[in-house]
């Protein structure tokens, strides 16, 4: 996994609640057996006006000009600003794969769905939970300011806007450590292989039918 430490990135606002993972990456793209290459199909049904299929070259597809990702002022955005319950629905990790492949490294929302939230960390994306008031303010500032960027500092656990407005966010020490160092979680867990084996023996003795 790639490490995440600090980012000063352009912000793209996606102003709708309950954005589900079917919207983030529609089902036809889940047929791939690879992890990469989902970025061009991120938000496919909102982003394009034709029907997308896996393997399609997206460079000449007709786009929906109203959709934020298609607006030139947000080209190259790395911070996705979203509303409540972002990433709800299916557990498909193709959703964070598409978000990461598109170029987003940070997401800020009042709440995220549980499975999507933990899937994001496994792919070097930092999901930041901020209060509804803070998110409202960021939406207002972002819409009012072309080229609006946020400075995200994982070590200090802070986000700072160009207006000088700043807030701090929570992250578990375990996740922070893994993200800062880009650590392979499986490798870390296997350092405790003996503990897993001894747990397994006890567990099997207590429930021998398992």
């Amino acid at each position, binding site marked *: 996994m790639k490490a995440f430490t600090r980012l000063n990135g352009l912000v793209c606002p996606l102003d*709708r609640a309950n954005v589900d993972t079917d919207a983030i990456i529609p089902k036809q793209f*889940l*047929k791939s057996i690879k992890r990469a290459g989902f970025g061009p199909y991120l938000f496919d049904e909102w982003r394009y006006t034709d029907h997308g299929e896996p393997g399609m070259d997206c460079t000449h597809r007709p786009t929906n000009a109203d959709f934020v990702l298609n607006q030139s002022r947000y080209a190259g955005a790395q911070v996705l600003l979203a509303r409540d319950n972002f990433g709800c629905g299916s557990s498909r990790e193709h959703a964070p794969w598409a978000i990461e492949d598109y170029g987003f490294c940070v997401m800020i929302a009042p709440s995220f769905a549980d499975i999507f939230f933990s899937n994001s960390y496994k792919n070097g994306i930092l999901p930041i939970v901020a209060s509804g008031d803070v998110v409202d303010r960021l939406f207002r500032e972002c819409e009012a300011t072309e080229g609006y960027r946020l400075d995200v500092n994982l070590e200090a656990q802070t986000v700072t806007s160009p207006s000088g407005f700043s807030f701090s966010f929570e992250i*578990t020490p375990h996740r922070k450590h893994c993200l800062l160092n880009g650590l392979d979680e499986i490798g870390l867990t296997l350092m405790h292989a003996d503990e*897993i084996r001894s747990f*397994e023996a006890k567990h099997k003795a207590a429930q021998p039918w398992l």
Partner: protein
Amino acid sequence: MAGKNLYDKLWDTHVVRQEADGTCLLYIDRHLMHEVTSPQAFEGLRLAGRKAWRSDSIVAVPDHNTPTKDWDRDIDDPISKTQVDTLDANIKEFGALVYFPFKHRNQGIIHVIAPEIGATLPGMTVVCGDSHTATHGAFGALAHGIGTSEVEHVLATQTLVQKKSKAMLVRIEGELAAGATAKDIALAVIGKIGTAGGTGYCIEFAGSAIRALSMEGRMTVCNLAIEAGARAGIIGVDQTTINYLEGRTHAPKGALWDQAVAYWKTLQSDADAKFDAVIDMAAADIAPQVTWGTSPEQVLPVSGTVPNPADEIDPVKRLGIERALKYMDLVASTPITEIRIDKVFIGSCTNSRIEDLRAAAAVAKGKKVADSVKLALVVPGSGTVKRQAEEEGLDKVFLAAGFEWREPGCSMCLAMNADRLSPGERCASTSNRNFEGRQGPGGRTHLVSPAMAAAAAIAGHFVDIRQI
């Protein structure tokens, strides 16, 4: 000291180690798999030169991509076929306790099959790269969906890195009125707490209305816990659970069975257990439910009318209602029973078990699907469900009424195979998600119970099942 709730008990018996910040390594007993979310995990394992820690924990089946008819033609879509073939090859390389390949007589939806063969047992931790893994909580197991990186983590280590969730009790007392089902309980709960209401929680469903449900009904309720935002839904073990499991292929036998049952009977919340949130609902108040929008929380009793955005004060919610009405092509204040449908889908891991098919067949018996309905599909959850339904003559009831009787699979719940809605088509569906495009790009989904779906197929529009 307060007693433990069921979630505490299941959690505590699976913690391998705990970090100072509360992050735990949780041991996983059962690893369910399908073809969509596993290929990248096996590939990761292979690239790192790692083995599966315990392949006899794996139960796998292809279900999302498999066609539901013309099985003699195999899988037409080459990309779907590659994904199914990849699962075949991975299971061959890494091993499994049970694998039902495409066209096996017991093949079907992973969440229908695992309980059916006794591979889901009380007290287990159960995971799958699929959010509807919550289904298995019906057995007093801690079951939830995971992402593909976590699938790889479980394959390699038999554990997950987890922090404990909060516990919510949803207590439903009293008797359900005629016409209301497990599906209506679940949709009513989602309507009450919202699709994010359970985020960060494990929901325990309890109360006399839950205890009165069959295992099929309990699976429907737990299946939909994820649509309320909760990774896991659980129900305590009782005699109904034990009766269902006895004699199933992978359930313990003889002395081990007795030992297991004695333990399983402890898998309930203690009388003085504490919960972080408690929701009480009266079963008698739950009417048959119909979703009108593009989120499962946009749900109403069948007697209701489509909401008017002007009545909503919260601007984000108002915009959500306006967007949903536009996508669904509905006019505010339309009675639900005046909404006409084009297609009907009876199936999915939510409602494709024998009891669901019986309920739909009871409504369809001796009737005809309305001329205006282009397609009414019945897709059993597994080969075993299909055979049992055929033994009971349900297939003949459906076929005589003009429904199609298909081979098992996920089918039009998410339309990864050829079964899907065309743009603009409206469907009465027993599945679990009414998201934009879920059943096909531009398709419009209304979630209902099997009996309500069958009744809508006959009438051509939604009807109040209590009035027929």
